[in-house]
């Protein structure tokens, strides 16, 4: 039974439409940000692209002919799933980091972006996959023929009058190519995920599973009575075949080699086939999907294989043999007359084939574009139409890949079983295994080894599998029978005389022997290039080094490239819109201002980003080449950073030198407080440890003073003047002061035009840096400047970091020093003040002594009179004064005076008064005239000193008992007369001395009697105040005098002093207290 060809075609076209719908919907969802395919289930289903029409048709064929070993093809991947958790995760992570777009990219990336290796991988992949694509074409064409009943190569349309010949296989190839273009080459960036493609592939995976399981159930339970029934009937009908199919056949002299070979091949194929690498690595949306896929994918394989054996056995039972077993899946339902099942089976097979061809052609076209076309294209100067050219080249590559398969099918197609064609491809893909695994886990594996091994393995594969496959139809050709040039040792299926193996095991053995052998030997004998070493770090020691890489780049761009330049470069390959979008995304995460120049340390990272972005479209090798040629056009190149910290790193981010310098610096800073010494020694340390030529520190003492050089170390120590060459750096220094960041120039030849430094350049300096000296949150104190004559690119991020931390310490030290200075100054001032005070005090004490000595040591003796004088100054010196002048044996002058104030001035005036009085004492003049003379003599001095004097002057004549006296505004002396209570006040008219230049004083006379006690006193006695501010008063003085009058004059005088002290309740006197007591004895 067959189905109408139009009907089948319509169904197939409808199915294709459905696929497009699924893809379109998935893409729309992705654009909306609600991805349909971003989950582990779709990821697992997309990996199931592994199950092609080989599985769908071929497995049954294999099961029906050689038996159970067909399972090995699925047990292998299932087993490998155990290793995904590590190997696959690592591959995906590296790929995502580097925008890897294919397995060729991945392998060439590991071996230093080798274009040759990338091309080789591509060549092997394209030629190796050729039979595999042929297999798909053959399967679909055959199944179409079966279901519609037309002959193989052409279709004769039943309705037409004349039979029209229509090549089915050619049109199928065309349709599959168009599928590939539509699903996989809409846009250029091939490292990004194709959501539509994946959705379609996942949908196809569901269809093929449902279809095959349905057919299985149909055959098992509808055509037969279940599993047991098929087995029993088969065992009865073909007991020998039963045992043959359900065991492996070590009896044929091959041991278990064929099954092990198949297991090994399939284990490699699951990741090495370009389409598997594409869906598992490139299209992986999330690393977390792996752990679910690890069991979901094997489950899928398990389910799809569950009914292979029953269908195979059922087919043999049905047809009595295994002829046409490859298509039992479709022929059994047809034989049973179930057209729906047959159609479902056809669709399943179509899905399996279409899915495989789509993904494979996309993956291979990417490889072709990036690794074969690109190396040529990058030699041309980039043009505006490049993106258009590239995408169309990619589309062309898809056609190329599919049609290569088509031609292979035309050449060998019918002579091979499906499975056997597939195994040829598996073995080709396996040639990648040593380089891939070695690249991931063996640090010494190198480019030469990978290329040699892969090339040798590929040649052996060609010779032992590909060539025999072309001769499969003619097994008796010369080369097959007698070997190349008739050398039997070179017989393709028995190379070097190795016989007794099936052709796959044979080819596997030889190709792997040469591949692995050459890889190991070359890697061990030859060394890696720098580029490779860098990649080895990324691939193997990847994660530790990555962190260090961020810390300090080991390369720098000799001439900076600006962001617009980078965008323009990317734009030429991926289109301007996408380029600026990518750059914006990159900048957003890095806090770099797109407008300004890129900080130098960011440049290598940015270059890497641009390279990665380009790699996403043109492959890693080509991207590297594009970048290199672009940089050299610009006159820039990557050069090694001068590694100032060359020894082993002692900790994660500090080298031993850096630690040493830090240690030394803190030693210097802690040793002394002298800022000058610290600065000098610090600069000398820098000069000694790093190859600097000049280091200098400029500091300002306060924010309104300009910077001044505080320390200058190194060569060229001429006098510092405004003409000195280093003054040219002033703009940098000022910027550093203001923005408190380091400003440095790594190559004076690449200076921005704004600042020119002809003198510095003439001196031979090529790099310099200015590091602000400041404490966090405070104004800059100054700037440390360092200059080098020998090293371009001296100032790495790490070095600048070290210098910054040193200036931080220096600022701390400077602050400490200035604090210490301030403290010292304060202490000295205080000391000075104390010293001056002490000196003044001593002077005052001396003055006191002198003043006291000016007073009469003891009163003169006069018959009939007792005299006592006292003076108690409140301060050291005072203005009180009393004196006696004995004129003759009977006459004595007494005086008491009070110069206003207690100052030294008062004391000096008092001394002057004394001198003047002594000069007059010999002249016999009356008290009033003495006062008058005194006033006129003292007036000028007193006015100038703004002082004045009160004075009481009396003359007592013992002979007459008369006391004549004059008063210049002084307290009136008191007389206590024996037997009287009240006192007599001695009063006489007269103004205070020093008010007028000439004055007249009244002179009075009183006759004293025996027993009279006279008290001359200053205002210190009556004006003494008690706690409440009450004055002692003249009344009290008089009262005290009358009470004490019986005592001796000395006792009276002392008692008055006691009285004042008692009354005022204080140990210190408020005012000078002076008095003269005179008692008339007879």
């Amino acid at each position, binding site marked *: 039974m067959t189905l109408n060809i139009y009907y089948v075609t319509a169904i197939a076209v409808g199915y294709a439409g459905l696929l497009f719908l699924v893809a379109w919907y998935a893409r729309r969802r992705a654009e909306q940000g609600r991805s349909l395919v971003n989950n582990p289930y779709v990821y697992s289903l997309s990996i199931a692209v592994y199950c092609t029409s080989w599985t769908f048709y071929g497995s049954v064929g294999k099961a029906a002919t050689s038996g159970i070993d067909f399972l090995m093809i699925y047990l292998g991947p299932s087993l490998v799933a155990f290793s995904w958790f590590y190997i696959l995760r690592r591959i995906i992570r590296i790929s995502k980091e580097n925008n890897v777009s294919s397995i060729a990219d991945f392998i060439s990336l590991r071996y230093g972006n080798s274009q040759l290796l990338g091309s080789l991988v591509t060549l092997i992949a394209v030629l190796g996959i050729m039979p595999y694509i042929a297999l798909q074409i053959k399967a679909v064409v055959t199944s179409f023929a079966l279901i519609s009943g037309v002959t193989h190569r052409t279709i004769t349309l039943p309705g037409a009058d004349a039979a029209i010949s229509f090549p089915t296989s050619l049109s199928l190839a065309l349709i599959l190519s168009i599928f590939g273009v539509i699903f996989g080459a809409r846009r250029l960036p091939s490292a990004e995920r194709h959501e539509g493609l994946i959705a379609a592939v996942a949908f196809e995976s569901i269809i093929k599973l449902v279809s095959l399981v349905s057919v299985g159930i149909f055959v098992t339970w509808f055509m037969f009575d279940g599993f047991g029934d098929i087995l029993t009937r088969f065992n009865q009908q073909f007991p020998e075949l039963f045992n043959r199919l*359900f065991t492996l056949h070590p009896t044929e002299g091959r041991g278990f080699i064929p099954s092990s070979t198949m297991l090994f091949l399939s284990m490699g194929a699951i990741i090495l086939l370009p389409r598997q690498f594409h869906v598992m690595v490139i299209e992986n949306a999330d690393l977390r999907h792996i*752990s679910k896929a690890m069991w979901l994918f094997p489950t899928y394989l398990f389910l799809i294989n569950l009914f292979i054996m029953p269908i195979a056995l059922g087919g043999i039972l049905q047809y009595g043999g295994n002829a046409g077993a490859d298509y039992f899946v479709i022929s059994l339902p047809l034989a049973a007359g179930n057209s729906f099942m047959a159609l479902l089976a056809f669709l399943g097979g179509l899905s399996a084939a279409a899915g495989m061809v789509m993904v494979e052609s996309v993956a291979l076209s990417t490889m072709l574009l990036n690794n074969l076309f690109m190396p040529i294209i990058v030699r041309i100067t980039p043009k505006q139409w490049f993106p258009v050219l590239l995408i169309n080249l990619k589309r062309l590559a898809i056609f190329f890949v599919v049609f290569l398969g088509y031609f292979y099918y035309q050449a060998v197609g019918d002579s091979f079983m499906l499975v056997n064609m597939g195994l040829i491809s598996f073995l080709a893909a396996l040639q990648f295994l040593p380089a891939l695994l070695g690249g991931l886990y063996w640090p010494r594996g190198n480019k030469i080894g990978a290329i040699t091994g892969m090339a040798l393995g590929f040649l052996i594969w060609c010779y032992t599998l590909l060539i025999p496959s072309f001769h499969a139809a003619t097994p008796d050709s010369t080369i097959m029978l007698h070997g190349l040039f008739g050398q039997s040792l070179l017989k393709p299926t028995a190379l070097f005389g190795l016989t007794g193996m099936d052709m796959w095991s044979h080819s596997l053995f030889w190709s792997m022997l040469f591949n692995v052998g050459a890889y190991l030997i070359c890697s061990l004998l030859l060394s890696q290039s720098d580029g490779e070493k860098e990649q080895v770090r990324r691939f193997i020691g990847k994660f530790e080094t990555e962190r260090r890489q961020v810390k300090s780049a080991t390369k720098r761009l000799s001439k900076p490239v600006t962001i617009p330049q980078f965008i323009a470069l990317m734009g030429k390959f991926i289109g301007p819109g996408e380029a600026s979008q990518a750059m914006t995304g990159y900048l957003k995460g890095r806090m770099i201002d797109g407008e300004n120049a890129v900080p130098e340390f960011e440049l290598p990272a940015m270059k890497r980003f641009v390279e990665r972005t380009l790699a996403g479209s043109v492959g890693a090798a080509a991207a590297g080449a594009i970048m290199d040629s672009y940089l050299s056009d610009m006159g820039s190149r990557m050069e090694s950073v001068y590694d100032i910290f060359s020894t082993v790193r002692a900790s994660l981010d500090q080298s031993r030198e850096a630690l040493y310098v830090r240690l030394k610096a803190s030693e210097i800073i802690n040793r002394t407080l002298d800022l000058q010494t610290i600065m000098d020694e610090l600069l000398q340390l820098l000069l000694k440890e790093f190859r600097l030529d000049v280091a200098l520190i400029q500091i300002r003492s306060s924010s309104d003073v300009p910077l001044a050089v505080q320390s200058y170390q190194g060569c060229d120590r001429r006098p510092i003047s405004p003409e000195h060459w280093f003054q040219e750096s002033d703009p940098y220094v000022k910027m550093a002061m203001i923005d408190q960041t380091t400003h440095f120039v790594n190559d004076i030849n690449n200076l921005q035009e704004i600042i020119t430094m002809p003198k510095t350049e003439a001196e031979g300096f090529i790099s310099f840096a200015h590091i602000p000296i400041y404490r966090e949150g405070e104004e800059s104190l100054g700037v440390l400047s360092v200059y080098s004559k020998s090293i371009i690119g001296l100032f790495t991020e790490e070095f600048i970091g070290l210098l910054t931390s040193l200036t931080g310490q220096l600022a701390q030290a400077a602050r400490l020093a200035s604090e210490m200075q301030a403290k010292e100054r304060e202490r000295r001032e205080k000391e000075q003040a104390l010293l001056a005070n002490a000196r003044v005090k001593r002077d005052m004490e001396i003055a006191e002594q002198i003043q006291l000595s000016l007073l009469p040591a003891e009163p003169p003796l006069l018959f009939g009179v007792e005299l006592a004088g006292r003076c108690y100054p409140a301060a050291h010196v005072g203005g009180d004064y009393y004196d006696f002048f004995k004129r003759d044996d009977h006459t004595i002058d007494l005086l008491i005076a009070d110069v206003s104030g207690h100052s030294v001035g008062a004391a000096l005036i008092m001394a002057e008064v004394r001198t003047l009085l002594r000069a007059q004492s010999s002249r016999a003049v009356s008290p009033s005239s003495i006062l008058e003379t005194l006033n006129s003599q003292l007036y000028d001095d007193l006015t100038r000193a703004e002082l004045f004097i009160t004075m009481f002057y009396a003359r007592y004549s013992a002979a007459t008992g008369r006391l004549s006296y004059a008063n210049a505004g002084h307290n009136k002396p008191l007389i206590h007369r024996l037997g009287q209570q009240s006192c007599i006040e001695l009063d006489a008219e007269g103004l205070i001395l020093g008010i007028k230049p000439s004055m007249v004083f009244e002179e009075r006379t009183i006759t004293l009697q025996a027993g009279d006690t006279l008290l001359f006193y200053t205002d210190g006695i009556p004006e003494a105040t008690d706690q409440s501010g009450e004055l002692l008063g003249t009344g009290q003085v008089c009262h005290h005098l009358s009470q004490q009058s019986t005592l001796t004059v000395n006792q009276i005088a002392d008692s008055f002093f006691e009285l004042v002290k008692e009354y005022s309740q204080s140990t210190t006197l408020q005012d000078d207290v002076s008095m003269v007591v005179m008692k008339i004895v007879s």
Partner: protein
Amino acid sequence: MWRSNLQKALKRLHLRESWVIFFVLGNVMLNFPFLKIFNQPTTLLGFPLLYLYFTLGWAISIGVIYLFASSAEPEQTEPDTEEQAPR
């Protein structure tokens, strides 16, 4: 209860080594000496012995991956699981 205990036990076993051991074990089981043991033309409950061995062994291995992978899942949110594993 038993499930959480199982989870705990699995977590303890969830090491890089476990995956390697299973991988090697699977390879051994699918190669010469083991295959020879089961490569007998006899049937068990009507099923050929080798067929049963493959099918059941396969199903069991999937179960093992399932248990291990699902017990490992919480750790997966940690981005550097692989790298934190002792080397």
